[in-house]
């Protein structure tokens, strides 16, 4: 097996994956820092390497609308956006999941206006986390490439049929170049096959999609989506097994680094998980029992895996790269706290907001978090959110 290794940025890696996945339709609108994805795909189109249709739409709202229409014909559909674009698509996100279209969308996580920022934080995806899409966060460029292929396989399952966002951090992953091992074209094609959708827009077997519902039946349709999410959770490992057979790589719902015998953990999402890992590696060399949990599958939330990794821990720090204004804690912290409470688990927890608007999170910063965990008496961890790094 001839393995091709390329030096690619996150955006380029996503584009390569799309090229290999026998995608039929890409409808996208440019926004920094996603632009390289669409530019690269356009290059592939010009060279005849991408056989699907590329539709340069006039806004992100139309981008997703075009994708939904295309997906309902039974075609395989992809798009990408960030920040304001995702926010503009917001109403259609719910339509896409309600209509059960297995669209895969790369989100290059970028801050939301105002003030305007082109840099990384998770405000965009977190602002739409309830939309009914499966949400995956990647830690490095290789994972960005892999998860695009993985997501089509997961999304198109009969028992799932939900759209997926693959989240990669703006600039830290989208523009930084890393080494990527590509899977062979034919292997990817065979792994995915063609989408097989029973309910399609087809004059030979006509259906009406997007009906109006009433109070006596709307709830049931929403519950179908709940069931689909649960199925996605159950199917996740099976799809990972299949993917690892063609790639040799497996990521898990949670990336667990030295968590087994750790006393203190950092829970973190996206590229900063890599940073935290490096800090943990250095501290382990000093004999300190620390570990990192990189939350890769965010929706559906991996409750069981989180409870398992929390077992026996002395203290944890939950890092959020987004703020839920007015909420007791930011998104990830809220989910973890709620999971612990429901299961009578009382691992002392500190919660942090970091890195807003692209503020750097360095190895030293990760060390500082671990040291806070270790130096303070866990029974006296502050409950209020600490806005780490803000010059208050």
């Amino acid at each position, binding site marked *: 097996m001839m393995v091709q290794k390329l030096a690619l940025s996150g955006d380029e890696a996503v584009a390569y994956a799309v090229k290999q996945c026998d995608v039929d*339709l890409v409808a996208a609108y440019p926004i920094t820092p996603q632009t390289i994805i669409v530019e690269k795909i356009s290059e592939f189109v010009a060279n005849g390497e991408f*056989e699907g249709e590329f539709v340069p739409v006039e806004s992100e*709202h*139309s981008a997703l609308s075009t994708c939904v*229409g295309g997906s309902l014909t039974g075609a395989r559909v992809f798009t990408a956006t960030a920040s304001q674009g995702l926010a503009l698509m917001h109403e259609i996100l719910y339509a896409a999941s309600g209509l059960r279209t297995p669209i895969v969308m790369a989100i290059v996580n970028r801050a939301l206006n105002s003030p305007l920022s082109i840099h990384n934080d998770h405000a965009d995806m977190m602002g739409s986390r309830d939309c009914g899409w499966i949400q995956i966060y990647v830690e490095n460029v290789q994972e960005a490439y892999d998860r695009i292929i993985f997501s089509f396989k997961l999304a198109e399952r009969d028992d799932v049929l939900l759209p997926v966002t693959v989240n990669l951090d703006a600039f830290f992953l989208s523009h930084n170049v890393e080494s990527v091992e590509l899977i062979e074209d034919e292997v990817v094609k065979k792994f995915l096959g063609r989408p097989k959708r029973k309910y399609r*827009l087809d004059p030979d077997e006509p259906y009406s999609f997007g009906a*109006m519902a*009433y109070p006596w039946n709307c709830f049931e349709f929403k519950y179908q989506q709940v069931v689909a999410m649960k199925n996605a959770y159950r199917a996740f490992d099976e799809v990972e097994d299949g993917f690892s057979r063609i790639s040799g790589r497996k990521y898990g719902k949670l990336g667990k680094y030295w968590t087994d015998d750790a006393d203190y953990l950092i829970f973190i999402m996206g590229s900063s998980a890599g940073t935290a890992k490096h800090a943990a590696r250095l501290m382990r060399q000093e004999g300190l029992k620390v570990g990192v949990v990189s939350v890769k599958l965010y929706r559906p939330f991996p409750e069981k895996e989180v409870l398992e990794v929390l077992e026996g821990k002395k203290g944890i720090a939950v890092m959020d790269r987004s703020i839920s204004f007015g909420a007791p804690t930011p998104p990830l912290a809220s989910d973890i706290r709620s999971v612990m409470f429901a299961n009578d688990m009382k691992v002392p927890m500190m919660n942090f907001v970091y890195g807003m608007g692209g503020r750097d999170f360095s190895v030293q910063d990760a060390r500082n978090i671990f040291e806070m965990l270790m130096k303070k008496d866990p029974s006296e961890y502050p409950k209020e959110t600490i806005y780490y790094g803000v010059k208050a």
Partner: protein
Amino acid sequence: MSYKPIRTLFELPTEENLAPGHRMCSGCGVTVGVRQILLAAPKDVIVVTATGCLEVSTVAYPYTAWRCPWVHVAFENAAAVASGIEAALKALERKGYGKRYPVIAFGGDGGTYDIGIQALSGALERGHRLLYVCYDNEAYMNTGIQRSGGTPYGTWTTTTPFGKVRPGKTEVKKNLMGIVVAHGIPYAATASISHWKDLMNKVRKALSYDGPSFIHLLTPCNRGWRFDPAQTTRIAKLAVETRYFPLYEVENGVYRITVPVPRPKPIEEFIKVQGRLKHLLRPEYADALAMFKKQVEDHYSYIEMMTKATSSK
């Protein structure tokens, strides 16, 4: 482009893509038009509908009045959804997995003039092979008769009632055909439900092009325009006969009036039978009436001028 013209009603199929039992109002102008359009179109079509009267009243779970494949996503994106269907089918056909069926998108005046103008503009600019039909009842009817960009000057709506200081809507009807024609698409036309042969042949002509086509269809609404439901088609006819709604087409930039009106009926004939316009005949609204008439005249003159100007092409 070549197409098979319709000459008589007898050659039309008996099986229709719109089934009865829908909840559109008694005497609704929209379904008269939609029926005529679907009878003229091939049996195998895919229909997209924006949120509005047509969508909500034809598909409410578990009832659907559509026999052909049909989809509704949201209010402002019928043109974008149609673009996606068209592009996906193009790719699928190219790869050998499917077939490029004709795609027809329906949007009301609200979903086209206002909230839907962006998606329409994008779809037209990109050159997708689809037909967009704007069914124009000149207000946001589904939500209770509020004004839209397609409501004419001086018209009563719930958000532009006439009173002591206002004669009704104070803004003029947006020139939708002008906007569409400016995109340089192969075919655009106006049509009225009263002139079925004109509409049906325009539909066939429109669908014969490998590119975007547009039909601006006048569909009187007895609820919003305030007239007896039995008069729907007559009022549509009056709209044409008074030159209020000229019937023309623009084929590759060449204007042609398809139903000439050499001796127009007085506009008062059109106004006096509608509750939404009748007030303009009162003496206190004389200025507004003059303005209304002037707009009708100016618009028809403009179409005549464009017909002359582009005839040498």
